[in-house]
């Protein structure tokens, strides 16, 4: 039976290196299958994350041959040229151990970008008395719908060079979330949110490299969302809501 040569990064916050494993190749296997095999058969102390294993939760995101991906949705045959695999923890995040990263900075930035909904008609957060009527075909709702499927997997964040080069940069996921709320007509925090996402640590730091959009496993467009935020902020200076 053919084998895969798999290099897995092992270590922690102080440092680490690749460990090499030989894994039996199967006709249909995902990278998550490979990592699980290593942990069960070769390295019981290998730390890694997964949950649903069917592409719904985003927990299993890792760097596979240099690209951030969901390992449960990455078929080995699609990425392993000549049966060689290289697996690292998600980039741009502190490492806890081996393939498990600390997602706290990612979600902290989500909060800093004011990624939470604030009902317009009840500033104290109480449920409004009436239903809001939001036509699904309206441009704003379509813009919001284009980004609401984000499950916070961190692939875009790990793929972004600006996140790597600018420690304060909020990142594509947080900004994408902010954009969905900016387009939510029921939300009452638009002005504060635009303020929170503007500047050198916000949307204005994006250089449209499109790494986020090209890697998003859900086919979202954080880059487009960030461009939308830039427009909204720019035109708001002239009193125009765009």
């Amino acid at each position: 039976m053919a084998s895969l040569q798999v290099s897995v990064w092992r270590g922690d916050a102080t440092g680490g290196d690749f460990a090499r494993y030989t894994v039996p190749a199967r006709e249909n296997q995902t990278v998550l299958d490979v990592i699980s095999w290593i942990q069960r058969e070769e390295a019981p102390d290998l730390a890694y994350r997964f949950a649903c294993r069917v592409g719904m939760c985003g927990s299993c995101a890792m760097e596979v041959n240099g690209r951030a991906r969901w390992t449960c949705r990455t078929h080995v045959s699609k990425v392993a040229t000549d049966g060689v695999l290289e697996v690292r923890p998600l980039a741009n995040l502190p490492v806890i151990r081996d393939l498990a990263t600390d997602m706290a900075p990612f979600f902290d930035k989500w909060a800093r970008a004011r990624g939470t909904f604030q009902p317009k008609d009840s500033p104290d957060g109480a449920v409004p008395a009436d239903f809001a009527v939001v036509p699904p075909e309206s441009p704003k709702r379509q813009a919001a719908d284009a980004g609401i499927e984000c499950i916070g997997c961190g692939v875009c964040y790990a793929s972004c060079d600006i996140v790597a080069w600018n420690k304060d940069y909020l990142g594509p996921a947080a900004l994408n979330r902010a954009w969905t709320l900016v387009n939510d007509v029921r939300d009452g925090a638009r002005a504060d949110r635009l303020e929170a996402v503007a500047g050198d640590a916000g949307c204005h730091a994006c250089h449209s490299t499109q790494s986020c959009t090209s890697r998003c496993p859900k086919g979202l467009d954080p880059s487009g969302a960030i461009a939308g935020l830039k427009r909204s902020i720019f035109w708001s200076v002239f009193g125009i809501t765009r």
Partner: protein
Amino acid sequence: MRLDPRGRTHAAYLAFLVHRLSGLALALFLPLHFWALGQAIAGEAALEGFLRWTDSPLLKAAETMLVALLAAHLAGGLRVLALEFLGWSGAQKNLVAASAGFTLLAGLLFLLNVGA
């Protein structure tokens, strides 16, 4: 800073790199360009002397390079403006190709004129 090329092969990333590096080169060249043209203050003879100095093949090649960099940066900049102000996304891949074409064209035109 080391960039792993594997995750950075999409057209938009290359466009970003070209745009940034051409901008860097132009920004470093620009003060020189202005200073040299400032020779004009010393009168026509000084300016003419400077222009003759740039007649060498090496400098002409450098000038062609600069025109190409300028065209590339302009084309890349138009792409960014379209992305940011017009919200173009799907069409932007075509824009990148168009940018490359424009760059080539401008460089060629300059070459042709230099020879003429």
